[in-house]
């Protein structure tokens, strides 16, 4: 085949039939593995942008309602445990680090290291969910769950740590807006964590079977992007829910 025929064929089909030269994971419509990986990254980022809009809407309503029912949001925020939020932020950041190291292990084709980093990420992710479950349980016990067992009682007379949190009854009722957004945001975030942990378990089984350490990095890398995104959402939830109202 001379170069002219080859050029014509390339222009027509977009790629050349390599036959056995293809790695098995290279899809037919891509020229080579880097191009396939670039397309996968692009697609993943488009998905993450829709996620930014989704969580962005929640953040936006949080900011608006915080201005709207300011004393209720401050009092509601005072009931959260800062130590739990800080611990969870730490767990997530370390898990982002282990996941980044996992991507590195996939790129350098080290199967055992990749499995180790995935397992570490799984443990840290589950640790985060356990702390979150503990907090939610605490809020249930305190009657802070709107629609299920909410009571404004705790916001009428001040608390041990915040004796000045004495809201009038109508404003105390509005702490339900804070807790609704709190459960919506931390709940959606935790749902993303559960999905992430589930996907990561599947990836772990596949890596155990020998996948993704043969140059086919895109699935691991894209999962990494998802995991880091979920980390970023928490990076903003932490100050907004736990920190900024402490002295107000």
């Amino acid at each position: 085949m001379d170069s002219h025929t080859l050029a014509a064929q390339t222009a027509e089909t977009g790629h050349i039939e390599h036959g056995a030269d293809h790695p098995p994971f290279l899809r037919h419509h891509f020229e080579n593995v880097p191009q396939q990986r670039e397309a996968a990254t692009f697609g993943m980022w488009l998905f993450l942008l829709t996620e930014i809009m989704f969580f962005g809407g929640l953040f936006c309503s949080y900011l608006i309602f915080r201005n709207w029912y300011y004393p209720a949001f401050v009092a509601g925020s005072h009931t959260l445990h800062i130590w739990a939020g800080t611990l969870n932020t730490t767990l997530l950041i370390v898990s982002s680090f282990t996941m980044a190291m996992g991507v590195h292990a996939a790129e350098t084709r080290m199967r055992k290291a990749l499995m180790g980093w995935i397992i570490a990420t799984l443990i840290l992710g589950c640790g985060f969910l356990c702390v979150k479950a503990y907090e939610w349980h605490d809020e249930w016990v305190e009657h802070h769950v709107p629609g299920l067992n909410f009571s404004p009682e705790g916001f009428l007379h001040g608390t041990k740590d915040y004796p000045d949190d004495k809201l009038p009854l109508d404003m105390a009722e509005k702490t339900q807006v804070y807790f609704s957004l709190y459960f919506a945001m931390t709940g959606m975030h935790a749902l993303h964590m559960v999905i992430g942990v589930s996907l990561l378990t599947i990836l772990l089984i596949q890596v155990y079977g020998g996948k993704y350490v043969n140059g086919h990095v895109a699935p691991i890398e894209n999962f990494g992007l998802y995991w880091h995104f979920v980390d970023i959402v928490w990076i903003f939830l932490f100050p907004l829910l736990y920190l900024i109202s402490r002295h107000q």
Partner: protein
Amino acid sequence: MDQQAHEHHEHHIFEPSEPTHHAEHIVSPRVYLVVGTTLLILTGTTAAVSYVDLGTFNAVVALAIACIKMTLVILFFMHVKYSSKLTKLTVAAGFFTFLVLITMTMTDYISRAWGRW
């Protein structure tokens, strides 16, 4: 020979613009370690600062630190610093659109009769 001809052809087509496949850059574990440690330090800082009464600036400082952390995660953990122009443009365009949406919504709410809803 065939492979060479192919590459030559491709070069000819794509040379003036961004290549369709970006040379992959493997980020070193040292970078991940430095970024991860910085993120943990910033987490400690933001938690510690929340114990100091800065008035309105508690929120400003906490959100500024969160923005720095987000930027570090995006640039290094998510490899955007080492990515193709296409990826960089996608991320930038997404955040720009998001900021426009937030700004428009906030502009609407802030110009309403606060206190009389």
